């Protein structure tokens, strides 16, 4: 089961993960990562913008590569756009497979690519206004692990 989505409203990961696991009968492993907006004291809100013609297509392309690289039964990849506050889920990736290593690695692979190579622009609102964010050096290093 393949479920790739951009969401404009807050979501509850459990409401996606439960049905996803159910939709892959016979799985031996399911691995899920949920990223949330960190509760930094100076950040009032986070805004994610995207470019409609590229962002979702890019996520589908990433899903294709994950499905080609790992032995998966299903892949769920959901990403928020819009304005978020601390504690809100921003991304959820879940992979179902016969064995754990494929599920774990597929989620790791998708997250490293989403974190530094996906078509999102992120800015955070602090007391003095909005500030654009670039990926951390660590995000690029993480991505290189898959070359």
């Amino acid at each position, binding site marked *: 089961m393949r479920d790739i989505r951009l969401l404009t409203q807050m979501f509850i990961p459990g409401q996606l993960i439960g049905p996803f696991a159910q939709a892959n009968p016979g799985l031996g492993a399911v691995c899920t990562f949920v990223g949330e907006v960190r509760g930094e004291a100076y950040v009032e809100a986070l805004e994610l913008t995207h*470019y409609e*013609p590229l962002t979702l297509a890019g996520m589908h392309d990433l899903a294709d590569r994950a499905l080609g690289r790992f032995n998966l039964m299903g892949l769920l990849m959901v990403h928020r756009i819009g304005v978020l506050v601390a504690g809100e889920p921003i991304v959820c990736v879940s992979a179902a497979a016969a064995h754990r290593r494929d599920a774990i690695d597929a989620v790791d692979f998708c997250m490293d690519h989403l974190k530094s190579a996906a078509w999102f*622009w*992120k*800015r955070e609102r602090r007391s003095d206004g909005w500030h654009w964010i670039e990926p951390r050096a660590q*995000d690029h290093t993480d991505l290189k692990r898959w070359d």
Partner: protein
Amino acid sequence: MAVRVVFLGPLADLVGADEMELPAPLDWPALLAGIPPAVAEQLTNARVHVACAGRVVADKAALRAVDGDEVALLPPVSGG
């Protein structure tokens, strides 16, 4: 007869607008001449990409947008 030029992320702040229209057909020199100089300067950065009609252009200088195309100016991504 126009090409819609869309500014993403911090580029929209530089322009003070999300998009503008330029006459078609639109090539690379015409794009650079038609957008605000501050954005044209950003476009010389290899990390700033350009998409035309929903596809990232491999060689920006080879841009050739026709009437009805949307050209998106894509600054370095922040990631998700």
